[in-house]
């Protein structure tokens, strides 16, 4: 990746184009996404990451530990948020080039656990859109609130993406 220093700003438009970002979308919430938490996908996630603790793939073990069903791992909220035909639709809406997007930061706050069979409602809000180096680097920050079928807050998470040069 090419990271320009500050002396490169004269040439920024030549290298990176001059697409404008739609900052009017800051603060905008998108329609809720309702996702059923699939036990099969939780088992598949556990296999993909080499998980050995059975509460993440075995219903009996999870229930024995006091969970409703198989426990979703700590990062699973982002998987649920991607359960749409185009996970980049919001980034595209603000004017980012989806083929150049890098995920540069992710954080979660946790409340109630998410388990297999839950129905999770996710509401995403664009919280910031900004540029650095005269538009050479474009950023979008969004925050998602995930609530379960009992109306309980499960997790709130924040994602920052960058359109790379």
């Amino acid at each position: 990746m090419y990271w320009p220093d500050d002396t490169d700003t004269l040439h920024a438009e030549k290298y990176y184009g001059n697409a404008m970002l739609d900052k009017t979308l800051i603060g905008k919430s998108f329609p809720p996404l309702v996702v059923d938490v699939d036990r099969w996908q939780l088992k598949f996630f556990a296999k993909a990451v080499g998980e050995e603790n059975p509460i993440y793939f075995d219903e009996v073990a999870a229930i024995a530990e006091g969970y409703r069903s198989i426990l979703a791992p700590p990062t699973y909220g982002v998987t649920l948020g991607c359960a749409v035909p185009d996970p980049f639709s919001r980034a595209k809406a603000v004017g980012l080039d989806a083929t150049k997007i890098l995920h540069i930061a992710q954080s979660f706050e946790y409340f109630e656990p998410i388990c297999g069979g839950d129905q999770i409602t996710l509401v995403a809000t664009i919280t910031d859109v900004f540029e650095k180096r005269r538009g050479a680097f474009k950023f979008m920050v969004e925050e998602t609130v995930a609530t379960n079928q009992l109306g309980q807050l499960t997790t709130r998470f924040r994602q920052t993406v960058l359109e790379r040069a």
Partner: protein
Amino acid sequence: MKEIFFDQIAIGEQLPSLMKPPITRTTLAYFCGASNDHNPVHVDSDFARAAGADDVFVHGMLDMAYMGQLLTAWVPQTSIISFGVKFGAIVYVGDTITCHGEVIDKAENDGVYILKLKLRAVDQNGESKLTGEAQVRVSGP
């Protein structure tokens, strides 16, 4: 899982490190299905090269999932209050990720005992790939 007690943990204590196997193309194909992130830069070498990368590269969320395993091997998942990372450098197929954690602060708040952790994942050359922080509840005192 061994129960962690607040008074038995000193600032500077290291969590047991977690070394994952080398990340293969198969791992990335599985993680597309596990994450719902089917961006071809993670599985299609032709696409990745055309987009300017050296080869397919790893989903940041896979690195973060590994870091999550470091935490959930140490405390129950429901003890995690917060968990955040920055993806500092791209991880490529074939890289081997090792996750490290260190206790950097302790606090007791209304009978809740909290440890603050600093997190770091490195590749086989020791290059830093991901840094972060987490707060976890432990038994007390």
